[in-house]
């Protein structure tokens, strides 16, 4: 059982690195969808286990919510929002993509060095799953920094969200139900607001390059 979670945590980390290496809008949304599906699978296996052992439903319910929200609803919303954007491939980067990938690698090493001293998480061996899922949070934040289009910020926020969820369930085998629901509601609200804002920005300025916000300076 533990080995399944190992592999799943590695695949989730992999999906976030692949996200950094893409350039097209559709690829961002597709990779995010795959990542959410993997997380739902993890939560599903964990929920099934807890159902068998303790008879508690919460993690399974959370898994269903993830599938509905992050795998079906949010990607569709994003597709609709960005359907009317004129250019579909991001061309302008601060640093080139191989360098970004190498920096992600450095982030994983960094997370290992910070997390390896926390004694609660590492009982007898180092907790591989926590290191991997914590790196997802940092890579999501890095993704937000490295992209110039507004879509990058949104997807980055969602990936951070994913990372926090996965870290929580790996380290404590399940979160309190109320906390989960609260996070989800917050996230939905944020996404809806961001989606509406981006649509308006696009209509007004014909571009979603937020680097141009610099022009508003004094």
């Amino acid at each position, binding site marked *: 059982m533990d080995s399944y979670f190992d592999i799943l945590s590695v695949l989730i980390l992999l999906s976030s690195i692949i996200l950094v290496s893409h350039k097209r809008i559709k690829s961002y949304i597709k990779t995010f969808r795959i990542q959410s599906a993997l997380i739902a699978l993890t939560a599903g296996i964990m929920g099934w286990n807890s159902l068998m052992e303790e008879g508690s439903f919460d993690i399974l319910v959370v898994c269903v919510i993830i599938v509905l929200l992050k795998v079906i609803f949010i990607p569709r919303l994003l597709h609709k929002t960005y359907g009317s954007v004129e250019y579909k491939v991001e061309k302008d980067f601060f640093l080139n993509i191989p360098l970004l*990938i190498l920096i992600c690698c450095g982030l994983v090493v960094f997370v290992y060095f910070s997390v390896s001293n926390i004694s609660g998480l590492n009982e007898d061996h180092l907790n591989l799953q926590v290191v991997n899922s914590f790196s997802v949070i940092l890579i999501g934040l890095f993704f937000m920094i490295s992209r110039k289009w507004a879509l990058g910020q949104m997807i980055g926020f969602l990936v951070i969200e994913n990372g926090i969820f996965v870290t929580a369930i790996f380290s404590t085998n399940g979160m309190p139900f109320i906390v989960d629901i609260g996070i989800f509601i917050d996230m939905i609200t944020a996404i809806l607001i961001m989606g509406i804002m981006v649509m308006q920005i696009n209509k007004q300025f014909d571009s979603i390059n937020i680097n141009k916000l610099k022009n508003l300076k004094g």
Partner: protein
Amino acid sequence: MIAIANNLIQLLVILLLAPMVDGVIRKCKALSQKRQGAPVLQMYYDLFKLIQKESVVSETASWIYKATPYIVFSTAAAGALLVPITTLVPSTQLSGDIILLFYLLALGRFFMCLSALDTGSTFGGMGSSREAMISSLIEPSILVSVFTIGLIAGSTSIYQMMRAMTEVGNPLFHPVFILTFLAMLIIILAETSRIPVDDPATHLELTMVHEAMLLEYSGRHLALMEYGAAIKQLILMTLVANLFLPMDQLISFPGVGAFILSIVLYSLRVIFLSIIIAITEISTVKFRFFSIPNLAALSFILSFLGFLQYFVLGR
């Protein structure tokens, strides 16, 4: 004695199976495009036909041009002697070191690049320069993946590594091996010039990398170069098949029957891998040439993360 016979059988099997892999991949691609496609044995017919034709040699070419096909073919075949198909028979001095294998294939590549420059044509230079770049970028990833597996197995001998992997059981359920497997898949795509690195079926000289180096060759020279490339592809696929999908631990009875069963299982695994490669080729397009460093960086990260997962994170 048995060991030497084993090596010879291994060489024969690889030599016979190499054109079939190409045929399988082409057939898959054709079926996915709703065509019949050429028969699976087409490459055998092609090679036989090419051997009987005369060669047209350029006036600018020197002895390097004529020596290269033989060198490419024999280094690939010598590599075939080094890579075991089955782990049931213990190794000899011949089952070599994996670093030796990759530098032996580098000999073939060195001469291929030189022969392309030898004819004094623009396409040859272009093929050489692109091939030089691609192979340099993919090399760190190759060595890091190989070292990871070697360190887990305790040795860099290919036989030891395959043996160790049969003892691991199901390698693909460990994070280390999934990452290294994906890295090696990308390496195979780069080294054997498949989509997305280079299109093996292109006719435009401007998009060729490997084909541009073969452009001037004809007749038996071309047959030898193509055969050598097919053998190299099969060697790399053998490495992946035996390291990541080992089945020899399921054979628990000794004897000649077990040996034959092992070879049959090996062929099935190779065909399975070629179908996977065909599916990869069908579902993507050839990347823009300067997007290949992105792919190489991804492959390096995958192998480096594999190393990290095992040696630093402990599993």
